[in-house]
């Protein structure tokens, strides 16, 4: 058994290692070392917990058994999961953090002596408040992430679910959370504790159902942030430095990612959270646009254009992930490069269903990361580029965001694809993108539409090169 002071120092060390783990992610070279720091921090935290309890009785065996069961499941998932399913995986993992926080809070509420928080029925007020916050945020994270998971997995429709009185209902539930917490603290009655958990699960569910599929990058980041705040709440209850530091890190990380995603869509955080975007915009797009002529082409035309180009920029989007076209795309690019054509990739901040989604897919297909550029880095290059190859992206290239102040996406940063000498658009049909608006780019003189499955089209182009 080690002293409380010594274990506190070790928890601090593991907190510092977690900071270094995130710091490592500032560049791909240092990131692997960062991940190692993270693992080390976790090993230290777990070992110190064992040593500080110092109770190597039969209960200890069960701890190891449950640890092993979880570990095996986790390792199995980590090796089996395809990279395209990363958003679902992350959402699923968030739900587990949330549920674990809820369970720890329940456990601490039922047996406060084990955590030095007082005795059942007279838990220290401060601890009870911290516990309630941890439990409520954990429950919201859990049910919210489950909905996000179901939407991403396609089990639940990605379209927003809205109903009358939604916002007043949510507001009412949020107020009742505060009221129930107050009642719990003043009466210490377990009924209020269970009620708090129940309404927190409910609000998590209600908060996420009105948010549409393409807003998932914001939702996932937000739930990431929540899982951090839940951990921090529990950290305060347990008076554990490692948990407090980690909770704060994860909480602010998720908040920053949400901010970046919102900025990428030029929408305010509240606008996303209140949901329902894209459901009411149908009437805005004028009917006359459908008559406009569109130039369509096939793989041979596309191959011809690219063969005669000296530079090509690839713009991938969610459609590429859906079609699993990243490997076929890499092969096409390899062929282009053999013909001395300069190829780079342009990634919009909200491309895909989670932050950095496209980068991971391209990395999986062995695309070197120094050929992949962010919007600000590459946007000026479109003007000097011969061909833009847009694969599975739509709204992020729509010039209406710059020119049409009536457009719902006006002000959103977009890739200046239209400045290229010619634009190739791989798409399954002329249907508007997520935002429900038409893309003027489809009707431009220098645009060639390639209507096909992204993977098949890319393979056909490679054959024709």
């Amino acid at each position, binding site marked *: 058994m080690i002293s409380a002071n010594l274990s506190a120092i070790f928890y601090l060390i593991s907190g510092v290692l*977690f900071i270094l783990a995130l710091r490592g992610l500032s560049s791909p070279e240092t990131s692997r070392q960062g991940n190692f720091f993270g693992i080390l921090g976790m090993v230290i935290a777990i070992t110190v917990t064992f040593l500080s309890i110092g109770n190597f009785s039969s209960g200890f065996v069960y701890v190891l058994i449950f640890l092993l069961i979880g570990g095996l499941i986790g390792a199995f998932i*980590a090796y089996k999961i395809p990279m395209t399913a990363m958003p679902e995986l992350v959402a699923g993992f968030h739900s587990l953090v949330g549920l674990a926080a809820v369970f720890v809070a329940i456990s601490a509420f039922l047996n406060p002596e084990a955590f030095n928080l007082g005795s059942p029925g007279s838990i220290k007020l401060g601890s009870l408040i911290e516990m309630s916050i941890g439990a409520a945020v954990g429950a919201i994270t859990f049910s919210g992430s489950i909905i996000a998971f179901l939407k991403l997995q396609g089990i639940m429709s990605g379209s927003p679910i809205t109903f009358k009185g939604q916002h007043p209902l949510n507001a009412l539930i949020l107020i009742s959370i505060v009221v129930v917490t107050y009642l719990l603290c003043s009466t210490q009655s377990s009924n209020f504790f269970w009620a708090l958990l129940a309404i927190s699960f409910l609000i998590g569910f209600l908060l996420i159902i009105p948010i549409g599929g393409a807003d998932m990058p914001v939702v996932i980041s937000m739930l990431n942030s929540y899982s951090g705040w839940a951990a921090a709440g529990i950290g305060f209850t347990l008076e554990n430095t490692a948990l407090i530091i980690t909770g704060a890190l994860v909480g602010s990380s998720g908040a920053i990612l949400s901010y970046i995603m919102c900025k990428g869509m030029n929408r305010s955080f509240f606008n996303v959270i209140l949901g329902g975007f894209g459901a009411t915009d149908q009437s805005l797009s004028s009917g006359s646009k459908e008559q406009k002529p569109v130039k369509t082409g096939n793989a041979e035309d596309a191959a011809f254009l690219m063969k005669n180009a000296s530079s090509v920029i690839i713009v991938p989007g969610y459609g590429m992930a859906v079609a699993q076209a990243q490997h076929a795309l890499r092969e096409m690019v390899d062929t282009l490069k053999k013909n001395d054509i300069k190829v780079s990739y342009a990634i919009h901040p909200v491309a895909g269903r989670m932050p950095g989604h496209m980068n991971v897919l391209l990395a999986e297909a062995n695309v070197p990361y120094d050929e992949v550029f962010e919007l600000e880095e590459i946007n000026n290059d479109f003007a000097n580029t011969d061909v833009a190859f847009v694969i599975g992206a739509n709204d992020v290239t729509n010039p209406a965001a710059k020119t049409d102040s009536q457009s719902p996406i006006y002000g959103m940063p977009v890739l200046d694809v239209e400045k290229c000498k010619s634009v190739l658009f791989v798409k399954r049909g002329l249907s508007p993108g997520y935002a429900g608006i038409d893309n003027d780019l489809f009707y431009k003189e220098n645009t060639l539409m390639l209507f096909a499955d992204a993977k098949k089209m890319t393979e056909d182009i490679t054959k024709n090169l």
Partner: protein
Amino acid sequence: MEIDPFIFRLSIFILSIFIGYYVVWSVTPSLHTPLMSVTNAISSVIIVGAIIAGLAGDSNGIFNTSSIFGFLAISLAAINIFGGFLVTQRMLAMYKKKKKGK
């Protein structure tokens, strides 16, 4: 008058938010997905609470309602710890630089 230990924890918390803010802004956007999976893994350090809860069974036995929730939380957190770190490692291993002379 002595300062409540809560204030010290609050200070750690607030300062950590600032550290998180600056550290995360310096994360390159191409690594945002690994960032999410690794933050997932490290927030599962909540397992320390789960272990304490699991080992808090009374003299009548290892399992009581409180410790069962602890044991379940251990498994949930362990899925995240192993899954989170391993999948991050798998992703990071894929990020390669351009080979020279290609």
